């Protein structure tokens, strides 16, 4: 399809403050990833501008890269997973999330077509090969968490990196893995390509799924976070950003998938507008409505981390330092 | 032996008919190295080519070897037109052409190994030849470890060992001292007399040319030089190379050929000077 937006132009390194009036650089862990849609949508809708912040989005093709870029001083704010704040606390890098966009991580554990009959529960994954986007990512931890929760060892299933997008779809379609943790829109694309709904073992996109897996009603995923220092010094800017995102979340809640898709750059639809609209419609239920974190939500995230991330393990984590709701209230 | 006018139908070992060679020059023009060369060498004949430097002797040999295509004219060898390399000839180049990554013995045995002779046999044969050229003790040296004259002698052994029908040699002995040179000349004559080889031999030493050859061909001054004279050397064989210079026939031939050659050589310089004058005008 014809692309609509010209490239925003290369930004400077911009290590400086980024306070009022000056530009705020938000590093996005993959602009085309649906979980980060609100960050881009807010820009498209002009909400940042309306709130009085000059925002530049930097597409960093992956949450961890966006995070390192911020810690290195290349960006001010990151649109990435909330769990990073916990991981960074374990590494003495104080960062704090200040608006929650994803109520759920939007992950689902799918069974490869050839194994549709055989694998019926997590227990059946023993000795199998499970695809994740990349080792150490939240998809990887999700698998490990599920294994441990079902009373197995983390190593009972082999974990293969299959990336996201076409490589993930290809790996599943060709049964190169036995099962895989996938995200939208990959799930929808896979569904379309294999011609039937794939068997889903666990699905935390839905409220029921969240309840079942994490025993919680929210599992904060995509969020905006920044270094605690920066947050202290730029409360005003943070507030404006939070407000813009909150308004975007409200916009999403009150509009249909098609309407939202129409606001997004045409290129993001990848030529299949219908599918894109449907996927956004599905996405709505995994998004937060008001941008605030809930206590049992962040605890669920910590629990996952403790189980699946050896770098966190049973280190002392002060959850209250990892997020704040002061800007969204 | 018949000598029909039809080129290629006779049995000459080397037959150049009206060969002209034109080279492109850096200025974008062209330069005629040789023009209308007719050269016929029967099997069993020893022909020397003498001529001023730059007159096109190597060019002629290259054409006979099939390494250079004449711009016009034809080259035949044993009635076959020469396309690509002349497989019946062996060629000792004017330049260094030893393979630097092969030891002396490997270089010498190269022609045999390529013909499929077993390594042991090829080595035995090579050692025999190395002895003939006085390099027996240097078999395991690499070319860069030899002196200039030693490299030449290795190249000689390399060309001789394959025992070809045609021997093309471009100033093979010029880097050798007189004594070594005589030994090599004797070896060459012996090799040639043993079989029905045709030899085309380039040298700047008129004594050498007359002493060795059946025929001495004189090339004119370049550019566009051509054959200006051909002298039959009817000194009977076997010849004693040591004393041949005192042979009255030799002396006479030498004077005759030298007279002709001198004219050609001085022409080269005159033409250059002439040019210069017309340039100044």
């Amino acid at each position: 399809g014809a692309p609509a937006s010209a490239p925003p132009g290369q930004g400077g390194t911009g290590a400086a403050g980024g306070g009022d009036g000056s530009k705020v650089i938000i590093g996005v862990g993959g602009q085309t990833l649906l979980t980060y849609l609100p960050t881009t949508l807010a820009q498209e809708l002009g909400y940042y501008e309306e709130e009085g912040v000059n925002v530049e989005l930097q597409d960093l093709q992956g949450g961890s890269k966006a995070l390192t870029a911020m810690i290195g001083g290349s960006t001010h704010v990151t649109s990435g997973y909330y769990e990073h704040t916990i991981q960074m606390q374990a590494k003495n890098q104080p960062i704090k999330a200040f608006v929650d966009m994803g109520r759920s991580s939007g992950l689902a554990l799918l069974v490869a077509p050839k194994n549709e009959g055989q694998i019926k529960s997590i227990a059946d994954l023993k000795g199998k090969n499970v695809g994740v986007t990349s080792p150490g990512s939240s998809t990887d931890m999700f698998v490990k968490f599920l294994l441990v929760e079902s009373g197995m060892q983390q190593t009972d299933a082999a974990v293969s990196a299959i990336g996201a997008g076409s490589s993930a779809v290809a790996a599943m379609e060709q049964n190169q893995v036995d099962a895989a943790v996938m995200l939208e829109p990959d799930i929808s694309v896979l569904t379309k390509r294999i011609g039937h709904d794939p068997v889903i073992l666990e699905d935390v996109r839905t409220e029921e799924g969240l309840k079942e897996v994490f025993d919680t009603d929210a599992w904060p995923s995509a969020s905006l976070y920044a270094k605690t220092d920066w947050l202290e010094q730029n409360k005003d800017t943070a507030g404006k950003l939070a407000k813009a995102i909150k308004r975007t979340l409200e916009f999403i809640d009150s509009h249909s998938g098609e309407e939202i898709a129409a606001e997004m750059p045409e290129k993001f639809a990848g030529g299949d507008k219908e599918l894109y609209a449907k996927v956004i419609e599905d996405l709505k239920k995994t998004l937060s409505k008001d941008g605030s974190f809930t206590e049992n939500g962040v605890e669920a995230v910590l629990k996952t981390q403790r189980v699946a991330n050896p770098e966190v393990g049973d280190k002392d984590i002060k959850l209250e330092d990892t997020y704040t709701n002061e800007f969204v209230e | 032996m018949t000598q029909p006018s039809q080129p290629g139908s006779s049995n000459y070992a080397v037959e150049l008919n009206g060969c002209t060679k034109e080279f492109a020059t850096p200025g974008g023009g062209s330069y005629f190295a040789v023009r209308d060369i007719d050269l016929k060498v029967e099997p069993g004949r020893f022909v020397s080519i003498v001529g001023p430097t730059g007159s096109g002797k190597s060019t002629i040999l290259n054409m006979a070897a099939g390494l250079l295509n004449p711009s016009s004219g034809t080259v035949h060898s044993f009635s076959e037109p020469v396309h690509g390399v002349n497989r019946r000839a062996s060629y000792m180049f004017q330049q260094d052409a030893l393979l630097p990554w092969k030891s002396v013995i490997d270089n010498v045995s190269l022609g045999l190994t390529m013909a499929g002779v077993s390594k042991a046999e090829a080595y035995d044969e090579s050692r025999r030849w190395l002895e003939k050229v006085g390099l027996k003790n240097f078999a395991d040296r690499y070319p860069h470890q030899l002196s200039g004259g030693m490299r030449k002698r290795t190249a000689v052994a390399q060309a001789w060992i394959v025992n070809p029908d045609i021997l093309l040699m471009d100033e093979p002995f010029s880097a050798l001292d007189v004594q070594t040179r005589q030994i090599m000349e004797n070896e060459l004559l012996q090799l040639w007399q043993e079989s029905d080889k045709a030899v085309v031999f380039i040298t700047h030493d008129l004594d050498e040319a007359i002493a060795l050859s059946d025929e001495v061909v004189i090339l004119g001054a370049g550019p566009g030089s051509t054959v200006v004279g051909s002298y039959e050397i009817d000194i009977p064989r076997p010849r004693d190379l040591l004393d041949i210079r005192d042979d009255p026939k030799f002396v006479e031939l030498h004077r005759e050929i030298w007279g002709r050659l001198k004219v050609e050589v001085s022409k080269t310089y005159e033409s250059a000077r002439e040019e210069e004058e017309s340039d100044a005008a």
Partner: protein
Amino acid sequence: MTVAPASKNTQRFPLRKDRDAAVAQRPKRKRSEASNFSIRMGQLALAAIVLGAWELLGRVGVIDPFFFPLPSDILMTVWVWISSGFVFPHLWITLQESILAFLTGAAAGLVLGFLLARVRFLERLLDPFLQMFNALPRVVLAPIFLLWFGLGIWSKVAFGFTLVFFIVFFNTLEGVKSVDRVLVDNAKMLGASEKQLLRHVFIPSALTWIFSSLHISVGFAITGAVVGEYLGASAGVGYAIAQAQGVFDTKGVFAGMFILMFVVLIIDLLVNRLERHLLRWRPVRSS
């Protein structure tokens, strides 16, 4: 004052004597042109055959357009990208990055290559380290490059640099080391200083080596820039490709790659021309 008058003389001789020979030369030159033309035709034919077969296999369903979109679709996308002007700012940035990476990498490789080739001690000291660094997977270093060089073009330049540098360096090193000793000795005897030796002997002698590495590097410079963009950027062809890939727009991915290929072709043509000019002293290869 140039060498021209002398060259005029050299030519006059044969030309005066034999004008028709100079004329006879002409058809030859024409034939070589014709053969050049036929090569181009052959290339077009080859490209057409491959693309045609691909299109055909795609249409009958042997090739899955999800992974390999139809060439016609790709060309359409290329056309849209070009006609809408969408691709040009991206291309401009990628070109900047590639050219900078190419120039800096080649320059550093040349300098270090010459230095280490001339100072034996340094070579022996540093060689293992350079080898080690050459084996570092650059993609892993992406965060560090971002840290050091920021989000702008310089982190991509650094990416390309690490690819180009090693290729040029190793080839230059070997090229200088394989210079004929006699030539060096001769130049030295004629009074060459180390600098003059470099200029008159080492550089011209290593030129074939350097050009070989430049041929390789052209591709790698672009690869480096694109991969850098692919891993984090807000503009450039790599970014455009990454975005297209993120939304399953394989047409876009291939369109980006086609455009890159075309650009490389043009750059390589220029390098080739430069090479022909600088190496004009070499004997023309006969068949």
